[in-house]
């Protein structure tokens, strides 16, 4: 459903973020993108909702080339591609429920949203999604009262409330401790399975990638150096992706359950 055709991205300073990417992602796949920092993982993910715009090639989503999209189509595209950020990007002074409803803004008229008049079924859906990630009782708590793991769950609920077709998660657990990271990844995997959502996750810990991915895409210097299902992946694969032997720091560890 997502197809990269010879996509390249050159930043204004001349740095090549992506080099001739060809990639086809199928519906419902849970794809983990690995690579060292600076390899282009974020750039790849952010191309799909046009937070960055590739300079060459075609990027097809549902058969349409999204690189041609203008303002209005772009907003529609972004309602279909939900994003999860490393730093959660919640408004810390708003309640959890309001933060979750912020994911619904793309579906809500400007005036309606300014007055806070969301349809009842949207609010119901937000509550259901909070329940799915296990923090329903925190709905009216201010977001800054929550722990990091809970905040990332709020942002998962926000993405789900957006009713996307694709979830893009940019280093979702990089700010969390190992046990919490595993819990958040499990939640993310479960909900994306339940809703049959195509999910792209950037991770730099290889043991996490191996544990949760259906398929792994390896990036190095803006190029795809590996693409294959998880059962074809060995430690050797990662050494190829990273271009060096695997070190202790590439592993997260700590999955207790």
């Amino acid at each position, binding site marked *: 459903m997502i197809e990269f055709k010879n996509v390249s991205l050159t930043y204004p300073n001349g740095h090549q973020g992506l080099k001739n990417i060809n990639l086809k992602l199928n519906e419902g796949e849970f794809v983990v993108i690995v690579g060292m920092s600076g390899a282009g993982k974020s750039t790849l993910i952010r191309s799909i909702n046009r937070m960055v715009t590739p300079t060459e090639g075609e990027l097809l989503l549902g058969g349409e080339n999204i690189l041609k999209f203008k303002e209005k189509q772009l*907003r529609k595209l*972004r309602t279909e591609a939900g994003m999860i950020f490393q730093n959660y990007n919640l*408004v810390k002074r708003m309640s959890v429920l309001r933060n979750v409803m912020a994911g619904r803004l793309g579906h809500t008229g400007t005036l309606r949203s300014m007055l806070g008049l969301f349809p009842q079924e949207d609010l119901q859906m937000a509550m259901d999604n909070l329940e799915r990630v296990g923090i329903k009782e925190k709905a009216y708590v201010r977001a800054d009262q929550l722990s990091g793991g809970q905040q990332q769950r709020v942002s998962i609920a926000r993405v789900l409330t957006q009713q996307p077709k694709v979830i893009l998660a940019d280093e979702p657990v990089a700010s969390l401790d190992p046990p919490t990271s595993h819990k958040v990844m499990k939640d993310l995997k479960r909900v994306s399975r339940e809703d049959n959502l195509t999910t792209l996750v950037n991770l730099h810990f290889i043991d996490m990638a191996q544990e949760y991915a259906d398929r792994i895409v390896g990036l190095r210097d803006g190029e795809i150096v590996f693409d294959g299902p998880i059962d074809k992946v060995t430690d050797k694969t990662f050494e190829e992706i990273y271009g060096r032997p695997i070190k202790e720091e590439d592993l997260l560890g700590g999955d207790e359950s």
Partner: protein
Amino acid sequence: MSEKPKVSLRMAMTKKQKTYFYIIMFILSALYINAFFTTSFSVSGSAASPLETLRRIFIVPITNMDYIVQFPVYIGYMLETIAIAYAGVAVATILAIPVAFLAARNISHRFSYIGKSILNAIRAIPELIFAIIFVAAVGIGPYAGVLAISINSIGMLGKLYAEVIESIDKSNIDAIKASGGNRIQAMWYGVLPQVLPEFSSYSIYRFEIDVRASTVLGIVGAGGIGAPLILATYQRNWEDVGMILIVVVVFVSIIDLISGKIRKKLV
């Protein structure tokens, strides 16, 4: 065993610095000595003893029944003063927001100096001057006071608001844009919730300042408790001066107390 060299908290001065230090010390002490010998300490004033004046200001108003019954009159003036400050801050709060967005570097980029210059210009003019101008323009009364207070408050509030806006976290604006929200929605759900508590906190703080400021504005005829105060001092009616000051002190303290509590809850 070798003795460790002594460590001093301050870096040792070089010879040049020492010379400068002594020259400056010499000039300063010369100035002080000159000042002490040439300033005249004789007091020129009225025949009434200061103690008697103080007694009339602070003791008589709260012990003499004739004066105590007059307190409601001055409380009425004080309420007018508070109303002036309130109206002024309310207007300033609304008008300061667009100016602040204009002055915030992360919103208007290179145009921000326009907003900053407007705010600097306003702050450079004392509110008493604004009051005099507005009394001349719209006549004597509280209306002139409200205008003076509001214009003056825009200067400070606009600057503080702009600083708040400059310190916001832009990441949740990204999040809203990434979920398909438009620009207005990003402002409403991303920027406003971050800045509103601090905006209101600063407005309440400015209200405190304006209550004090508008007690003085009456002196130039801009309404409030300042007018009877200046009249009473001219006539040496120390009992009235005392009553007014007591009313002002009590009300200002109460307002400070309440606003402190509210502001603590807001941020």
